[in-house]
């Protein structure tokens, strides 16, 4: 049986950074990923990564404290404040290290890393490499993996997390796509860095086709609690046609949001000083309101207008945006405004863990978008997700390295065998028999329900109806038709497993969103329009039971800033 001291699941920024940390600590580590690492969705991040470097002449007074304050205020005070401080005070060091490792950041005239303004931030602190920051960071970390000879098992698909009867993590069970065989992989520690879950919203998301949330669901099924998953970020600017991301950097560089009357409508919702650079939850709600109140173009979308920035600035700072617009919608943003709508972008919630990536199960860690530390609370600021992946990827890698130091270096087979049987059962249950339901139809319907009933604005009646529909879809899923019977490279089987993960998370979201009778950050209810700190200044904790998700709570760590009304 394969055994490594640490198994990292996921080859994006958080996973690679965790693996590098373990490797540098001399630990036997391997990365398991369903994709080759450079295919990970971290590489699609565009606008930048926050750190109070104070390189920008307008940001000379910036500090990690100010960064933490902006993060916590942006989170609508649901972030754990100590964790946010750890993230923002490590940020400058993290950026320097990535730069020292070769990351090709854009530069200021003095040769320092360039920084641009981003939403909800008091200073221009978003470090960037044109509008391809995620790509540059991911390539850099992959390069370091090559340098340090980190073992990578690519196109292995994790389907089970093994936690034994002593509630200790023992490894994972995976499907090796190359052979179609299920394999047990023993480990003393497992770090999940499996990324986001945007595809719960069908095609209406900026996320990759592979960002389905199956990793979070796999941990959840194994008994690890999930936190705050009802908070989903809708990015204000995604292409009307196919929801591809148009970076916040477009507005950071001075782009306008314009309704059908040519009006910069953000003035109705935030102060003149903030305008397009409000935090994402507010800008998305504003845009949605414009469209709902009849000020959208053709009633459906608004414009992101970059024309006044001029050809040179667009080509220098936003070349990727221009390329995407030309390739996918045939519009050159130098000449025409870009039709955009808000859509699902990021899961603030995820696997419940602390600032060291530790979950309540010894030996099981989580980092990156699949995790919930929580530093984003109920609304993440742009530029903080790349930062989170690297800061907490490293911390979880380091902490897992300490944890495995004195552990016996061999697999505990009993627990793994049990998990293997469970995974086999799960595959048989959804794949065997003569089902009649088409899984892809179910997937599309799940997406439609999420968009319609759990969108930017929520109400009890709509959500109840949505939950009802989800329950019916879950029932139908039990009767889906058999897979493609091939063994190796059976993608049909994979997409159906991804759907199983989807259905699990959507149920949690529905229950949690209904349960939370307030509006906070990205969770915005028309029937409870105010934030309610007396009752709801707490994290939601979801646990898996045979009867369905069980909801509990966890205290928010305050201590630095008293919750106040958010004004921008």
């Amino acid at each position, binding site marked *: 049986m394969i055994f490594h001291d640490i198994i990292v699941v996921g080859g994006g920024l958080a996973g690679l950074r965790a693996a590098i940390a373990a490797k540098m600590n001399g630990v036997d580590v391997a990365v398991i990923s369903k994709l080759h690492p450079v295919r990970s969705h971290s590489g699609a991040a565009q606008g930048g990564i926050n750190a109070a470097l104070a390189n920008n002449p307008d940001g000379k007074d910036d500090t990690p404290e100010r960064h933490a304050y902006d993060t916590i205020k942006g989170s609508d005070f649901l972030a754990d404040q100590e964790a946010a401080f750890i993230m923002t005070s490590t940020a400058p060091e993290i950026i320097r290290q990535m730069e*020292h490792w*070769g990351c090709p950041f854009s530069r200021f005239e003095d040769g320092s890393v360039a920084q641009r303004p981003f939403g909800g931030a008091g200073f221009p602190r978003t470090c960037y490499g044109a509008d391809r920051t995620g790509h540059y960071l991911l390539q850099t970390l992959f390069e370091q993996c090559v340098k340090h000879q980190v073992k990578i098992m690519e196109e292995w698909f994790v389907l089970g997390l093994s936690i034994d009867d002593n509630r200790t993590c023992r490894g994972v069970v995976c499907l090796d796509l190359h052979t179609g065989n299920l394999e047990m992989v023993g480990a003393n520690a497992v770090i999940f860095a499996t990324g986001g879950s945007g595809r719960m919203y069908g095609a209406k998301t900026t996320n990759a086709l592979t960002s389905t949330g199956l990793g979070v669901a796999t941990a959840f099924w194994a008994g690890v609690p999930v936190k705050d998953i009802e908070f989903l970020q809708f990015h204000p600017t995604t292409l009307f046609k196919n929801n591809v991301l148009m970076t916040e950097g477009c507005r950071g560089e001075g782009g306008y949001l314009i309704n059908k009357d040519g009006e910069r409508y953000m003035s109705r919702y935030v102060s003149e000083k903030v305008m397009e650079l409000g935090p994402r939850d507010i800008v998305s709600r504003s845009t949605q309101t414009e469209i709902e109140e009849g000020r959208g173009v053709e009633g459906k979308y608004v414009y992101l207008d970059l024309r006044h920035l001029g050809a040179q600035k667009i080509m220098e700072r936003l070349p990727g945006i221009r390329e995407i617009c030309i390739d*996918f919608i045939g519009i050159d943003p130098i000449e025409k405004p870009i039709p955009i709508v808000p859509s699902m972008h990021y899961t603030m919630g995820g696997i419940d863990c602390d600032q060291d990536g530790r979950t309540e199960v010894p030996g099981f860690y989580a980092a990156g978008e699949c995790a919930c530390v929580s530093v984003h609370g109920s609304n993440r600021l742009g530029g903080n997700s790349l930062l989170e992946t690297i800061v907490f990827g490293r911390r979880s890698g380091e902490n897992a390295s300490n944890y495995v130091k004195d552990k016996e270096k061999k697999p505990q087979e009993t627990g793994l065998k049990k998990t293997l049987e469970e995974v086999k059962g799960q595959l048989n249950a959804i794949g065997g028999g003569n089902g009649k339901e088409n899984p892809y139809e179910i997937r599309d319907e799940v997406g439609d329900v999420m968009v319609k009933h759990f969108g930017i604005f929520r109400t009890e009646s709509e959500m109840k109806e949505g939950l009802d529909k989800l329950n019916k879809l879950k029932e139908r899923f039990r009767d889906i038709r058999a897979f493609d019977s091939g063994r190796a*490279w059976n993608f049909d089987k994979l*997409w159906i497993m991804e759907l199983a993960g989807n259905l699990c998370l959507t149920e949690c979201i529905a229950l949690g969103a209904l349960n939370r009778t307030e509006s906070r950050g990205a969770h915005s209810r028309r029937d409870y329009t105010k934030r309610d700190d007396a009752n709801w200044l707490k994290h939601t904790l979801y646990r898996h039971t045979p009867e369905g998700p069980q909801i509990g709570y966890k205290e928010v760590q305050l201590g630095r800033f008293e919750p106040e009304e958010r004004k921008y």
Partner: protein
Amino acid sequence: MAYLKIFRYDPSGGVEPHFKRYELPPEKGMTILEALFWILENKDPSLAFRCSCREAVCGSCAVHINGEYRLACKTQVDPLGEEITIRPLTHLPIFKDLVVDMKPFFEQYEKIKPYLIPKEEPPESREYYQSVKDRKKIDSLVDCILCGACYGSCPIAMGDPDYLGPHALLRALRFVQDSRDGAKTERLAIVATEHGVFRCHTIFNCQKVCPKDLDPTGAIAKLKMKSIGFKIKSMFGLARSAG
């Protein structure tokens, strides 16, 4: 009505190589990737193809479409005519259908030491400064998504499995031209060989097909110049000073 004629082959499942024709729905504005999904979901769940981002940044879906290597996700069906032929990337072993073994491709990439080997110890509590002008020297070289389109299109890669390939050579120039890198000589020694830059016959296929509009041909030409300088210097025992 458009048809996709797709290369099918499943060595482990006993399916011999052949082409299979699939009729597409009359929908307008589909990409090739969407068409492949439509087939997987409606006609043939055994079809194997890679994908992830669907926005031309992850490099998963490079295939051969009507005579040219392209990304399936950014190629539109409509302008391609009635019959569209899709094959996997060439010069690489086929796992199944459109899924190839990228291992040789990444092994070549690794040969050029694709990571910064800094000139000097990093300064304490600040970044290496790099002027705007120096940063410009690696513009576009840093944008390669390692999709393999250039490699598939390269006839030299077909004839010489040891050829480093346009992707690895472009990446080599990315480090050679980086003002922070101190291993210029070391890297030139790797590429200035018969399986490196001198194997390239300047055929321009790689430049033509690159879905990110990069110029591997030009990069190789630059490396050739630098390699010649390096060779001359090594003849006189001066190569070290080239760093």
